[in-house]
């Protein structure tokens, strides 16, 4: 019944300390389980990753996955409405959830003697969550407030939404997890019930636990609470590739901002692709630390920008390489764009120095070590590596994938992806102020 697959020690031994030992297996109903023991603090992080995000939504029903995440705090057959959160907190725990384009992630961090409580609650959520009209009506308004607070009432708040809309036309990444006001308004109870049946099954979930646990005891408890949850229908993930962008898309957006902002997104491969690693390193050459190229040039030397960033936004099916620059007072967007273009051209024409290459690897190594400092982070990383990469042990070995990237690779990916006809350019400019008489 239990197929225990002990992870092989394939790490290079670079880190004597900090190696994350784990065990993983599947229940008969398809639930994937990952367990990591660490007894240094009497806490345990319990997480469930459902492989459903905004990319699984139907157009016209955007925002569903995230809206649904809110509904799953409403209670279950055995947990009263409004009690889900207080049950965790009144037992000394913390909890939350978040939804991306690709997945929905729930977690509790509890005192380790409350492990069973957390398992019971997550199994209740998976087996028979309470999804009713009261919850839908309440959370609809709450989610709309979330949308206002995080996107509409905030300077440059619409940038990600626009970036995805233009970068992925007619594709499942065309919209972002928050969804549109219109779709939020028209979301119906029966659609949510259907959504629950389609995606919230053990065979579409990963239960990842890290902390002060006894492995054997934990396995028993998992069997007790999860083994009898029936398998759901097979979930078919959208796997086709998005169509390439044919030409540059450019938009000037008057917004409630004081400083102009420039957001450029290039279409790049999905996060598991080798090139995504090269792009990740390239983004660090450009903007990681104050000695990075864009920071030094734009913030320090010509002072054209107050803030500059480059990052590789890797998703399951595709990615975006995004640069962001916020103009310094009195500086215009044209010069910012020219500088960013120049620096990208420079990457294409000359190899980055060996010293820069080493610097990027050192900074990756530092982040790699730091990222495993908390139980909640470890539980989440383990689940991500399993779901997206099919290789949970990347938590110990991912740095090797970076080490395989050469300076030539970094140059090559810049040439291949960071091109004009493969990008979206969003320019935020201050709106003309309405004069009050």
């Amino acid at each position: 019944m239990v197929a225990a697959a002990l992870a092989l020690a394939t790490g290079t031994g670079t880190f004597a300390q900090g190696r994350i030992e784990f065990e993983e297996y599947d229940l008969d109903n398809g639930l994937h389980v990952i367990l990591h023991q660490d007894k240094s603090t009497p806490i345990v992080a319990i997480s469930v990753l459902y492989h459903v995000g905004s990319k699984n939504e139907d157009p016209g029903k955007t925002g569903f996955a995230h809206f649904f995440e809110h509904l799953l705090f409403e209670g279950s057959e055995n947990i009263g409405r409004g009690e889900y959160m207080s049950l965790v907190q009144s037992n000394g725990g913390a909890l939350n959830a978040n939804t991306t384009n690709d997945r929905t992630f729930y977690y509790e961090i509890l005192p380790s003697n409350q492990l069973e409580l957390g398992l019971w609650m997550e199994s209740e959520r998976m087996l028979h969550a309470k999804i009713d009209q009261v919850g839908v009506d309440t959370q609809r308004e709450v989610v709309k407030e979330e949308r206002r607070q995080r996107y509409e009432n905030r300077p440059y708040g619409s940038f990600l939404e626009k970036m995805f809309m233009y970068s992925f036309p007619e594709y499942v990444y065309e919209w972002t997890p928050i969804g549109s006001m219109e779709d939020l308004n028209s979301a119906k109870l029966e659609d949510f019930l259907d959504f629950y049946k389609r995606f919230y099954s053990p065979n579409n979930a990963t239960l990842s636990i890290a902390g002060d646990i006894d492995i054997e005891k934990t396995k028993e408890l998992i069997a007790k609470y999860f083994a009898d949850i029936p398998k759901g229908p097979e979930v078919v993930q959208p796997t086709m590739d998005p169509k390439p962008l044919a030409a540059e898309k450019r938009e000037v957006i008057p917004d409630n901002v004081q400083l102009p902002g420039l957001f450029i997104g290039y279409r790049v491969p999905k996060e598991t692709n080798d090139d995504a690693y090269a792009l990740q390193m390239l983004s660090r050459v450009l903007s990681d630390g104050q000695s990075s190229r864009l920071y030094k040039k734009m913030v320090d030397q010509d002072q054209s920008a107050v803030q500059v960033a480059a990052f590789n936004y890797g998703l399951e099916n595709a990615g975006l390489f995004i640069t962001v620059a916020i103009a310094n007072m009195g500086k215009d967007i044209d010069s910012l764009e020219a500088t960013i273009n120049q620096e990208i051209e420079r990457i294409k024409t000359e190899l980055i120095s060996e010293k820069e290459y080493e610097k990027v690897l050192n900074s990756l190594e530092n982040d790699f070590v730091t990222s495993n400092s908390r139980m909640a982070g470890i539980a989440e990383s383990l689940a991500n590596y399993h779901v997206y990469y099919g290789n949970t042990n990347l938590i110990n070995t991912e740095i090797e994938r970076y080490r395989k990237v050469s300076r030539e690779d970094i140059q090559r990916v810049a040439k291949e992806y960071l091109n004009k006809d493969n990008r979206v350019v969003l320019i935020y400019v201050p709106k003309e102020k309405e004069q009050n008489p």
Partner: protein
Amino acid sequence: MKKNIIFSAALSIMTMSSFAQIDRSVQPQAGPAREPQIAEYESFTLDNGLKVFVVENHKLPRVTFSLVIDRDPVKEGQKAGMVQLAGDLIRRGTNSRTKDQIDEQIDFMGASLSTYSTGVYASSLSKYSEEVLEIMADVIMNASFPQEEFEKLLTQAKSGLESQKDDPSAIMNKVFQAMIYGKDHPYGEMMTEQTLENISVEDCKNYYSTYFRPNTAYLAVVGDVKPRKVKKLLKRYLGDWENQVVPEHQYKFPVAPPKTMVAFVNRDASVQSVIKIGNTIDLEPGNSDIEAVRVMNQILGGGSSGRLFRNLREDKAFTYGAYSSFDSDPLVGNFSASASVRNDVTDSAVTEFLYEFNRIRTEPVSEEELEAAKNNLAGSFGRSLESPNTVTSFAINIARYGLPKDYYNNYLKRLSAVTVEDVQRVANKYIHAESLVIGVVGRGSEVAGGLEKFGELKYFTPEAEPTSAPSLPVPDGVTADKVLSDYFAALGGLDKIKAVKSMKMTAEVSVPGMPAPLTMKRIQKVPGLFSEKTLMNGQVVQERTLNGEKASSTQMGQEKPMDEEAVAQMKKEASVIFDEVNYLSEDYSLTLDHMSMVNGNKAYVMTVKDSDGEEKTLYFDEESGLLVKSESSQETPRGPISVSTQYEDYQENNGVKYAMKMVQKVGPQTITIDVKELEFNGKVSTSDL
């Protein structure tokens, strides 16, 4: 063999049936608890007075160094922002390293180094700990404050201020601080473009050499280190850091508003109101009330099971989240509660906040709520110990605030001793329900009106300067014609106004800078007779006269030629006594698109455009119907200049009201006109001119 198979089959049946038997309706019981342990630390003091705390933790191959400067808050006055700039500048060059070199070295190791006004923080993999410590010590002891870096930071700070102007949360936080602490308190001071202009690099240097001293500093070293080695390294790199007496400062406790007030900052683009309500509190670290306040706050708004969250989000769906928090501080702390809510529920949300404040002050919390809050806090204490840095922050607090050595070890004990009575007592003591500041950043025209019921409504700029009210929408059904006819009715009725055919008026005109007031005499009989004389000390200094078609103008006794336009203008003035009557004709177009506040009262704002395209803005008081203000633009040789006139002290004369006092603002100048004598429909003849 066979036996075994049967046995295992039986076992699996047993296991199966044990699944079937779980009673899901029963919440699992907790296992035996493991008390969270506060890790051991070592501490020592260097000869120069630097107090050091070391936590050895080899779980990850990394180390963090954090230096905290313990000084009294510094009042910056006209140089607000200086301390912050100084903190940022510390990392931007030393006597032996340029900023570029520091960046390059730190980044190459994948390390981080940041400085701020009361400290320095560095972290790295443990294999680089000595190199990082060396650079950290260099900036602590030898920062060089290059002018060029100062200029850069200044520009960035200005841009930062600029970008905050559109960030409602940033605005709220700054204005709230200014409101509760006062702008003359170190905690309420506000950096502005003006204060930035007053700062020099010398000020920053001075701050650094005064306050960055080992004798008032604490250094925490945490991670993959050996305490003995750390001691050796610190002696080597920070042993020469010179100590010096550091000045101390004292401040008066800020005065709370006498009554609850609403501080409103207008932001027309807002689709949500950012609300923050609270007051200062007198609660220093180590105070015996702290655990009770913590529990009280947890119940009220400490998280997603707090009353505020449950009420404003889960019940009313006004917001994505509503919380409360408090801050203990040796000087002055604060309590506050906040949420972002959609525009149309702004006042309802404030009502719910105040309801919950009142409830926790007047009703005992339930035992269940008390226990839940305590468990919640105990759990969060346990989770905080996951980070080895927590231990050193405890150690530093103990040293800094003179707390007992076992202060944190006894935290859970003190927490569990908090009673229902304690919660109610501290709610009353620390939530000042009668003198709250209710801060709101939002679309004033839509939401401000509903807030007057909570206290005096005052408007502020994002820099916390008092300002006037933003425009308000006109209620349905009110038109320009209606406002105009209400105005005529308020004056005494259109018939009576039209019946006024002549006027004699004497007024005193005070002009700032003039040694004595001027006297203005105006005589008018419609149509065609008009005279206006301005006298200084009884001497006519200016005169305008119209007698039928004949117009003349003199200044200091000298005839002043009049062009056609000036003559036409005077004829127009002479043709009517209450010129608003003309607005009824088709020559004028009237628009009424919003309301505004004039002297704290709502007024209709009417734009009047004549056939020549000249515009005037008139403000009619919503309640009295009277004209309270007018605005127009006048051409001058130096370009257009705006003229605004406020009308006050309406008095009746022959059944028609007239404003006996007018305050006119012409550019920067304020002119006051006091009407001393007024006669309607008296006898006026050409001989009076």
